Structure formats: C-alpha cells, structure tokens
C-alpha cells in the first residue's frame, strides 16, 4: 500500500510539474465550453437580410418591421432588382433576401398575398434554418393581422420539450464533457504510461518488486480524480454561465461520470499496452478516438441522419451512449429505469478493455 501511495504521489508531481499537461487538463475544458457555448453555435442570431419591397404600402412595411423586430434578423439594406440580390449573396452582404411583390396590402386582405424568400444554400443547413425562422415569423404575422387562422389550414402548435428556447449549449455541455473526459482519460493516461516506456523508467519499475497491477492503478488513479474534477468544472460552468437545467438525479450523474471515466481510462491503458512511444499513443488517441468521438457520437452531427455504416460504427463509440445518458439525466430527468441499457453498454466497454489490457500487459519488456 505504501508503494501505491508513493507511486500516486510521484504521478501527481509529474502532472503538476508539466505545464502542457496542466493546460490540457484545465485550460482545454474551459476553452471548449466557452467556444461551444458562445462561438460555435447553430442558433440564428442577427442573420443579415435584404428587402426588396415593390409594394411600399402599410402592410409591407409592417411585415418588414415585424421581421426585423426579432433578434434573428438584421437589415443589410434594400434592393431594387434581382441583380442587387445576387450581388449581395456573392459579396456576403446578406444571407437571405425578402421580395415583396406590388400591391401587397390589397392582396393580403384577399388572402392572395405572396412573398419570396431567397437564400444562399451553399450552407444548406443554415439556409434551411433561416427559411424556417423567416416562414415562421411570416405565418405568425398573417395570423395576427387577419385575426383568424385560414379555415382550410391545420394549425400546428410546436412545443420544444426539455429545451424550449432551443439552446445549443444544452447539447454542447454534455458533448464537451464527453470529449474532454475522452481526451484527459484516454490520451493523458496512454501518454503517461508510454512515457515510462520511452524514457526507460519502465525498465526499472519492472525490475522492482512492484506488481504490474500497482503500476497501472498508480498511473490511473490520479487521472481518474483529475478527470472527475474536470467534469465537475465543466458542469459548474454549464450551470452558472449557461443556466443548464438539472432535471434528474445528481448522484446518478456522478456515478455515470465515474463509469465513463473508467471506460475511457481502460481504453487508454489498452492503447499503451499496444504502443511503445508517446507519439504513437497520441496519434491513436487523437485520430482513432477523438475524431470518431466528436463526429460519430451525435455530439455535432445527428446519428439518425447518417448512412447505415456510420450509424453502425457509432455503436462502438462509448461517447454516444454517454451523451444519451447525460442528456437523459440533465434535460429529461430520467433515471436508470430508462438508461440501464446505455449504462450496461458502458460497463461492457470497461470489461472488454480491462480484460484486453490485462492480457496484453507484460511483466517483461517483450
């Protein structure tokens, strides 16, 4: 036990004396949370719009005012013809254009009014999003001004459950926690273990009465603790800065966090048993793990709209299941009665990689 304690103490010294490790440990999560929370967002805000109002009557002006009254759109200018509009797209002056044909007010009263929306679909997701927002505002305007819904139309009332304001940050906080834990746990442990091999200290450790199990536990425990602190830090930022809700049980979330960290650590140990240099361990952790974690976990791209081979691949990403768990607990407030399957999958990952690591960990050099 004394050996383990001194080993853990040594490991903490490595971590706290290495600026780069510290930066990855504590700088990266904070930077990522703010990046995803503020900068990288798919919410519409201040989208530039150009208006070509051929009608110039009370109704058309009212419509334009209504659209510009929201946070979503900002007037980029007015146009007099289609050439203006296409020039505007090319120069990046606006992201969409609204064309109101002549005699708008009269046709509006006769329920015959039409408007045209032109969008730059070189970014199809954004174009779709803007079209939906604008159409929504226009439909709203119609209902308000005519004071009744057209009788031949089914009125859809949309309610966004669990995240009524459609805040992207609610998705990103669980995503960032997942990615960070993956980096810290997998990348840093695999590097920390291969570093001992590369610097030759593993040779001395092996030629000591220290049991290999103690070496691995001693290496992993500090990272388990630091990863956990990290997760708490990100959650704290989510609660205080971004007003993340916490609908479910905190103890359950903590338990799941620890399980996921252990899964990531076991993958990190497995990588280190297969590699001899820090470089290779880093490459494997980054490219074989980080990228798929970000791309295939549903963090950024929805899994349901992926082609089936990728959907299938996403099932071997522990991150996918963890994101489902975190969202389930924090946003939907569900418990193990719903999330037991995802939890079992994570336990299975732990089992597979721990067994594989033990089988691969040698008590000798070759």
């Amino acid at each position, binding site marked *: 036990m004394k*050996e383990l304690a001194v*080993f853990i103490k040594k490991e903490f010294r*490595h971590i706290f004396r290495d600026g780069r490790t510290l930066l990855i440990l504590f700088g990266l999560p904070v930077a990522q949370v703010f990046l995803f929370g503020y900068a990288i967002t798919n919410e519409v805000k201040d989208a530039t719009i150009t208006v070509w109002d051929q009608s110039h009557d009370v109704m058309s002006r009212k419509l334009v005012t209504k659209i510009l009254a929201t946070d979503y759109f900002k007037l980029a200018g007015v146009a007099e013809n289609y050439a203006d509009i296409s020039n505007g797209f090319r120069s990046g002056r606006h992201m969409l254009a609204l064309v109101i044909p002549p005699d708008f007010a009269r046709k509006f009263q006769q329920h015959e009014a039409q408007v045209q929306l032109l969008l730059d679909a070189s970014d199809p997701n954004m174009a779709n999003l803007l079209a939906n927002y604008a159409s929504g505002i226009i439909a709203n305007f119609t209902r308000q001004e005519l004071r009744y819904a057209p009788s031949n139309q089914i009125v859809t009332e949309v309610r966004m459950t669990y995240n009524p304001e459609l805040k992207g940050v609610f998705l990103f906080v669980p995503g960032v926690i997942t990615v960070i834990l993956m980096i810290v746990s997998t990348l840093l442990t695999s590097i920390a273990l291969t570093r001992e091999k590369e610097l030759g*200290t593993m040779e001395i450790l092996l030629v*000591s009465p220290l049991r290999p199990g103690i070496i691995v536990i001693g290496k992993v425990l500090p990272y388990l603790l630091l990863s956990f602190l990290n997760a708490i830090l990100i959650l704290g930022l989510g609660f205080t800065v971004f007003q993340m809700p916490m609908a479910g049980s905190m103890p359950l979330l903590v338990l799941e966090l620890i399980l996921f960290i252990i899964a990531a650590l076991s993958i990190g140990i497995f990588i280190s048993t297969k590699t001899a240099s820090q470089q290779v361990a880093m490459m494997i952790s980054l490219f074989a793990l980080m990228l798929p974690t970000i791309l295939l976990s549903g963090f950024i791209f929805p899994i349901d709209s992926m082609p089936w081979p990728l959907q299938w691949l996403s099932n071997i990403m522990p991150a996918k299941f963890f994101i489902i768990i975190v969202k389930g607990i924090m946003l939907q407030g569900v418990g193990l009665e719903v999330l037991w399957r995802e939890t079992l999958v994570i336990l299975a990952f732990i089992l597979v990689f721990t067994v594989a690591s033990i089988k691969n960990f040698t008590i000798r050099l070759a």
Partner: protein
Amino acid sequence: MVEFNHITKKYGPVTGVQGVSFKVNPGELFGLIGPDGAGKTTLFRMLTTLLLPDEGSLSMAGKDVVQDYRFVRSNVGYMPGTFSLYQDLTVAENLNFFATLFGTTVAANYALIEDIYRQIEPYKTRRAGDLSGGMKQKLALSCALIHRPLVLVLDEPTTGVDAVSRKEFWEMLKRLQAGGLTILVSTAYMDEATLCDRVALIQEGRIMQLDTPEQVISGFSRPLYAVKGERIHRLLEFLRQLPQVVSAQPFGDSIHLTLVAEHCLPEVQASILQERPDAVTEAITPTIEDCFMDLMPATHG
C-alpha cells in the same frame, strides 16, 4: 553467484545472443566488453528478468531467473544503459521513490550509498534532469543500490560521461566490490576492461574470449607497432596493401600494425618512410582493444 548456461536469444530471424555460457563468482567485478550491438544489453536484460531466453538456463544466487523472477527483482540492482530516472523529480524524490518501491527507506541503507550520495547531496532539491552527466550517474547508482542488492548490474554506465567522472565511477565500483558486492558491468570502452577482475570479450552475440585482463593481453603473441602520421586514412590504405602487414587498425591518431614476422620490420619501415617521410613507427605493448581487434576476424571467418 550468476550463471549463464548456453543462453540463446533471437529477435525474430536475428540472433541477439548465441549459446553464451559463463559464471560470475561472488564478490567479483565482471566485465562484458564489446562494441554496440554485440549483445551486452540483451544478456543483462535476461539476467534482470526483463527478457526471456529462448534457450539455455540462467541463475542468480542459485535461483532460476525465469522461475524465481520475483526473487531476482528484489535482489538485483539494475542501472540501464540510458538514464532511467524521473527527470522532473528532484534528486531526493527519486531516491525516496525507489527506496519505497523496494520496501525500504533511505535512512535504513544510507551507510551503503553514503560514499556516493554524499557527493550529490548538496543538490538534492535539484531536478534530476538538470544534473550533469556525472551526477546523474551517481544518482542512478545510488537508486540501484538503495535496497542492498546481492548483484549489481550496470549496462554501459560510463557511456557519455567525461573522463574524470569515469575514473571516479570506477573507483566507486571498486569500493563497492570491496564491500562484498558482486558486480556485472558492460562497456564499449576497452581501457576500462583492465579495471575488471575478469572480462568476457563479446562480439555479435558470442563470447570470443573470457579471462583476466592480464591473461587476455598476454595472449596477444605477435609484436605490435604504432605508426603515427598525417592523413591517417590514406596511410591506412597504403599499409593494408603491403604484403608483410597482417593487420592495420586505426586507433585515434595512430595506426596499430602487426606483421607476418618480426624481421619484416625494417622493410616495412623503409616502405613507410618512402611513402611518408614524416611518419614515425615504434614498438608498443598491446592493450585489450588490440586483442579485441585481433579476435574479430576469427568470428567473421
């Protein structure tokens, strides 16, 4: 104390060590002498349980190294070829760490390492990575000794260390030996061979000769000459094509020469002076390195 018995180790198709057998007596300072890649590190790694031999048996203090690897790990002090301590830990932290790993304390065994550690103790709060080569080596030796091993295994401990520190290091080894420790040391520096009780000259995974350094040198039967002059390489080519020359090997700024027979010397000297009026030829006593060079073609042939 240590016994290698027909040990063979292959790395894939490459043979690292081929049928090596030797014994090291208790309290002996035993040297493995050979160039890089000769198999010295492989032999030491097998002895320290890091590698398994493919063939043969290996024992330490009467225990089988493969079966009783736990016994070996508790009783061997090992200093690998590269500096293998934690560079970001201080001198004292490294020493304490290794003492605890072996279930002991620095205080308990201070007497054994005092002689060595005292020299680096003023720097004990300095990080190991910031030490000079000689000091690193003293720290590594202290760490390898802290658990009072039965056998000390040092893999090229003096490589990359300055001449003064090398001399000091060998003096430390002699003192440890006087204390009763069995020491196995490998080196590529031939001059260090004379400081060992017995040496094994090793080349391409085989032992070419095993004896006391004095016996190895006295086994060198032919007279030896040193030729000094400018542009060694050209001179070497010239000497090698002379019919009376058996071997010509470059040794720093001179060439060591052996001849077919002693009476050929005047002819050879004349040829040399004709080619290089400034060259000086003189008779010298052979060193271990000459013996080594002399043995080498035998293994090739």
